[in-house]
């Protein structure tokens, strides 16, 4: 892993940053903690649509790429594809910690494919595949 906290390389600021901590980093995957900020525009009455968690998974994928040994810095990742992504329920309360896993499935630089899973303490909320396009020369973002 390159020096420093890779989460700091995300260009997301304030209510747009969902990923808060790296819990585990392996050769081909990353597990991150995520929270949906109460002030985020997606939140209504303490809840948000479950698909919003896809952003947390994409941010985890971006953190994975930013923490690759020798990863060019800075770079920015865009969520450009979603495939067979399923949401277990219509909405979720945000007063809880989410765990998001992004596992790299393939790459054809600058395009990277990840299998993603997001769960809370009791159940899986989201799973599927996303594609991240990485633009070199700007901050890391999705």
């Amino acid at each position, binding site marked *: 892993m390159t020096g420093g906290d890779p989460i700091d390389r995300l260009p997301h600021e304030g209510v747009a940053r969902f990923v808060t901590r790296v819990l585990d980093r392996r050769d081909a995957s990353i597990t991150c903690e995520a929270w949906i900020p109460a002030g985020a525009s997606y939140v209504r009455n303490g809840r948000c649509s479950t*698909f919003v968690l896809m952003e947390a998974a994409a941010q985890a994928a971006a953190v994975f790429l930013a923490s690759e040994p020798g990863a060019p810095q800075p770079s920015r990742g865009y969520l450009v594809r979603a495939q067979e992504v399923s949401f277990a329920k*219509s909405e979720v309360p945000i007063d809880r910690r989410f765990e998001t896993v992004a596992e790299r499935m393939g790459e054809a630089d600058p395009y990277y494919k990840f299998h993603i899973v997001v769960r809370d303490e009791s159940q899986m909320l989201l799973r599927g595949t996303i594609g991240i396009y990485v633009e070199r020369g700007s901050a890391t*973002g999705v």
Partner: protein
Amino acid sequence: MSFDIAELMHGSMQVVIAAESPYFEGHFPGDPILPAVAQILLLETLLRFSHGNGAWISGLSHARFVRPIRPGERIAVRIFLDLGFRTKGVHISEFTIKRGAQEVSGGSFLWHSGLPA
């Protein structure tokens, strides 16, 4: 909702993404673009207008977000509701989001009507 909906009809709407829209907040400072999940929120808004507030998006079969949407842009969101099929209460519909004649996003998604199957 913090979108300026200029026109809303069954299956389609015209939206101006105001420069001050909170969906740009922090995404990204100095280079704001509309997050992909905010685009899905637009789809859900249109879906609920057409099928009631109980409707919800339960999956993305495939979706492509090919061009960024920036502050102040006017976009057209369209859901092809009538092309979908239904099985066990799940529908599938295609969608496009366009800026003028140019597609910025598209694909297909699964949704529930919120009504008993």
